[in-house]
């Protein structure tokens, strides 16, 4: 079976869940071969093996993480040329898609983004227009480069002992054009990452102010979920932009999405419509969010949300 390259997404050696999802998907399509770029591989080896990485290409040259995106694409391009993998899977994050873009140009390959599943023949399923249309597409030139949206595949343990191979690549001057001088990791506290979380609780215009977001946070924490916000809430400065869910923010696809005080304008729906189960609390019975919900309560969020938090606590 042919190798499927999986670019490992990690922050300073901590493997992101999407990597395990990509390994699972890769092993359905061929043989997963992880590509590690940066320091910290030692601490991640077991985790990659546990989820089926039969092989790992390790590129720990610090130069490869000192510049924006280009070195990672250069390394992957070298592996594509030397190893002829059947496909390359990357996470459909901002950076993952940029790596895919550069790799596509370098290798003259087609690239598919925001893919939610891949089947035989590398036919990729996309959810487009905010979940309104399901499209299948394939690459017909070069090596399929596929950016898979986090939370689309359930990671399955498939213990393997990774065969390690050290690799590197010679960088061109253009690859060094944009230097990363500092990496600023913002305190995210105890909550899971928004795009990776199984449960997301978001607040919108109805929350009414920054101080009231503690209600959203309290509900999220009772469920071990992440906090999101609608554009109305982030534009008003009630919650940081990083947490915006929607057309111009993050796209999330959790098992459970709870929309609190969010009307459900298309802007917001485009970012959460593919969530598996949707619950909403809104005082307006006509709010479009109710067209999407599995369970909705028409009522005052300041009554309903705290009561829900309390009820969840009682059941724990």
């Amino acid at each position, binding site marked *: 079976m042919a190798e499927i390259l999986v670019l490992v997404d990690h922050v300073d050696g901590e493997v992101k869940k999407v990597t395990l999802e990509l390994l699972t998907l890769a092993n359905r399509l061929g043989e997963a071969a992880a590509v590690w770029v940066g320091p910290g591989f030692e601490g991640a080896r077991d985790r990659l093996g546990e989820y089926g990485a039969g092989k790992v290409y390790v590129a720990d040259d610090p130069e490869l993480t000192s510049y*924006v*995106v*280009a070195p990672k694409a250069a390394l992957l391009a070298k592996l594509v040329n030397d190893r002829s993998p059947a496909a390359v899977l990357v996470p459909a994050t*901002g*950076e993952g*898609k*940029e790596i895919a*873009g*550069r790799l*596509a*140009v*370098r290798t003259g*390959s*087609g*690239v*598919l*983004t*925001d893919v939610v599943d891949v089947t035989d023949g590398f036919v990729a399923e996309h959810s487009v*227009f905010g*979940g*309104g*249309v399901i*499209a*299948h*597409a*394939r*690459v017909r*030139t070069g090596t399929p480069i596929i950016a898979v949206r986090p939370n689309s595949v359930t990671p399955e343990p498939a213990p393997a002992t990774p065969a390690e191979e050290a690799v590197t690549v010679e960088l061109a001057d253009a690859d060094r*054009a*944009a230097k*990363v001088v*500092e*990496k*600023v*990791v*913002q305190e995210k506290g105890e909550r899971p*990452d928004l795009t990776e979380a199984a449960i997301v609780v978001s607040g919108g215009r109805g929350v009414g102010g920054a101080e009231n977001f503690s209600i959203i946070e309290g509900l999220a924490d009772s469920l071990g979920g992440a906090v999101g916000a609608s554009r109305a809430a982030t534009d008003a400065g009630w919650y940081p*932009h990083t947490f915006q869910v929607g*057309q*111009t923010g993050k796209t999330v696809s959790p*098992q459970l999405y709870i929309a609190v005080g969010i009307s459900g304008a*298309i802007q917001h729906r485009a970012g959460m419509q593919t969530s598996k189960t*949707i*619950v909403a*609390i809104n005082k307006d019975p006509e709010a479009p969010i109710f067209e*999407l*919900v*599995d*369970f*909705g*309560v*028409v*009522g005052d969020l300041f*009554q309903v949300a705290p*009561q*829900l*938090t309390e*009820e*969840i606590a009682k*059941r724990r």
Partner: protein
Amino acid sequence: MNIVVLVKQVPDTESPRKLKSDDGTLDRAAADGVINELDEYAIEEALRVKEAHDGEVTVLTMGPDKATDSIRKALAMGADKAVHLVDDGLAGSDALQTSYAIQQVLGRTGFDLVILGSESTDARTGLLAAMLAERLGVAQLSLANKIEIDGTSIKAQRQTDYGFDRVEATLPAVVSVVEKINEPRYPSFKGIMAAKKKPVETLGLADAGIEAARVGLAHAATEVVDFAEAPPREKGQIVTDEGDGGAKIAEFLAAKKFV
């Protein structure tokens, strides 16, 4: 400074968006066209760079005739002139081809800085900035929520999943922006009137030196196999709060094993 801002016309997200049944490409005629929202932030940033460092802002648009409306709006906001790449041969181009076509036009216009929105609301691939930087062999300062230019040096804050990176480069560069970067201005009445007199150069494939065999649906590196409207979600249960709304949600979540 020669600043080129890329502006795409996209279907209004408020109007129904469809794929065409014959070839699976976006039905651009079916919906109202508007400037891709993030491109307005790109235009604003281009104008701010011009205001601080002098120079000229050129709008570059690839798209059908009706994209002229979006070009006029960008000019009304304050851009100086525009180049409109329009040719039937471009229809259905994927990101790889689009980046090639734009590279060819940038070869004509020249540039110190190319600014674009980090993604469009229609395809949402987020690929173009990286592809262009790769093709042009210049610095990629993408997903920027802040930029600072001093002479030929440029610094940016690049938004990441964990926070941000501080990145630096020497011009020329390709910059893609996220909405946190600024607050786009509205065109003034004066701006709207002035825009009518600003030059818009229209280019076809041959004018721009674009090989016809490298663009368009028939030569795309990707193809749509099939598509369908997503099945509508099953109608959920909606109740009106009678003092026990929270408890009812908790019951629902328990039945679904979330708690």
